[in-house]
């Protein structure tokens, strides 16, 4: 960060700006003088509010990105697309009985999928979007839930679909149905919740809350993660569809405390 930044040329909605390299698209737009009140959110790649469509030199393709997660490039021609209309028929999750045709009932347009794969290629999360729409068509709700798990509902897929499918809403309904009706109940969770409710951990928690920050930090740094080998429960669909997640280091968040 200490080196002097070189400038790159970014074309935002048809107008050229010189911005320092090394900025995210979001920061570059702000550097250019725009104040974003929509189309910006968590700035951490989780909320899906800042999808960008762009082209770059040397390719005829349209590329997609989250503005907070992607560095600006020289010659980038871009626009923010903060919202894609994806209205959904209202549904009452409590009144739904999961059937193979449930997703088709709320989203009949998925029957128009031509398997062009444009949605998958457009997804800034790298999800197999077309595969989960195809799973929805054949009523495999669990598969839809798992393949769409990391969807942040930015809506780029729906903006690019020739069949006008509402991808992220399909995935969201599938995950809701999966969570309410299909996921096997966790016995461990029930046991733990009742223990918490019975006050078994109250003393321990109070002790932790009274610790000085330095002690708390030391404990945090010494914490252990369960290894993958210990998590061999075969009822975990997440494990079947996804590789085990890397432990996340929350050091940055602690620094700010």
């Amino acid at each position, binding site marked *: 960060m200490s080196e002097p930044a070189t400038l790159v040329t970014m074309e935002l909605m048809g107008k050229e700006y010189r911005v320092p390299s090394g900025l995210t698209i979001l920061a570059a737009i702000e550097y250019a003088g725009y104040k974003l009140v929509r189309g910006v959110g968590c700035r951490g790649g989780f909320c899906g509010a800042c999808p960008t469509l762009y082209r770059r030199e040397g390719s005829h393709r349209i590329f997609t990105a989250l503005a907070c997660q992607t560095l600006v490039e020289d010659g980038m021609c871009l626009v923010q697309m903060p919202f894609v209309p994806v209205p959904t028929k209202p549904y009452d999750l409590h009144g739904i009985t999961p059937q*193979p*045709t449930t997703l088709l009932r709320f989203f009949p347009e998925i029957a128009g*999928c*031509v*398997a*062009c*794969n*444009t949605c998958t*290629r457009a997804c800034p999360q790298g999800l197999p979007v*077309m*595969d989960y729409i*195809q799973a929805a*068509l*054949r*009523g*495999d709700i669990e598969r839809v839930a798992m393949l769409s798990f990391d969807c942040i509902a930015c809506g780029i897929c729906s903006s690019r679909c*020739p069949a006008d499918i509402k991808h992220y809403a399909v995935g969201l309904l599938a995950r809701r149905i999966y969570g309410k009706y299909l996921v096997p109940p966790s016995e461990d969770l029930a046991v733990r919740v009742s223990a918490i409710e019975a006050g078994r951990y109250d003393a321990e928690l109070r002790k932790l809350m009274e610790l000085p920050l330095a002690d708390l930090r030391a404990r945090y740094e010494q914490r252990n993660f369960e290894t993958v080998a210990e998590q061999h429960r075969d009822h975990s669909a997440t494990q079947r569809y996804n590789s085990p997640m890397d432990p996340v280091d929350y050091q940055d968040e602690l620094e700010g405390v």
Partner: protein
Amino acid sequence: MQLAYYPGCTIKVSAREHERAALAILRELGIALREMPEWNCCGVVHTLTGENLIRQMAPLRVLARLRQQGEREAVTLCDMCFNTLARANHLARTQPDQVSALNATSGGGLDYDGAGEVLHLLHLLRDRVGLAAIRKRVRRPLRDLVVYPYYGCKLLRPTGIGLDDPEMPTLLRDLMESLGATVVEGSLQTQCCGAYLAVDRAGLVTERVGATVEQARDAGAGAIVLSCPLCHFNFATLQPHAGAPLPVLYYTQAIGLAFGLDPAELGLDDRQMEALGRAVPSQALHDLAHARGGSA
């Protein structure tokens, strides 16, 4: 023998019993199907104009995936899937430039060399297993069952894709006779049931299904035997109400019954077995229904 298997969407939604029965009879014949780990809808209907190339992407993607998964052949149970995939395959072989054009616009996932092969389960049973081997495996011949084989469209047309003579098919007759069943036939066996008109012109489907069922009844049939999941849906749900409906069986279920398999394993519930029993006072079927003891 192990073969790759392309199910198609409807097999997983409204035709699960066809899959169950197919897997059960193939197990008896020493054949295992491995479902393709990732697949998409075939598109159901072959696009009939040369200018609508985007509609070829779905079937070509299935074929491309088959090759990417290291397979050459895939078996399918669905007549529509079979027809659409076989015709897309024909396109890939005769007009590879069209596949290249599609591939160029789709990020490379449609790189397909035309070397895949789509087999209908009936191909497999007739040409690889052979009717003689099926006959040998029969434990409870369907002696008193009178069936009307219904072919519909996509099993037979167009010539070059279809499995049998489009005007005078014998495939289902031969198969049913090898199970010991009595076969009756009629002119409507090869006429369309109305297919997807079930969505917005269901009256036309009911009219066609009604005429076909009437012809089958007049010929003395106790059941209709067919292959296509869309025909099955139309015959099972859009049969006009005039007394008890004529039972509709997938040929895989008929084979399973003749093999002496548990009706439950063939996706046949007590109500269906009772209907079959009513249609035919067959000792073998009667025994099967009672062996389950579920009708009480």
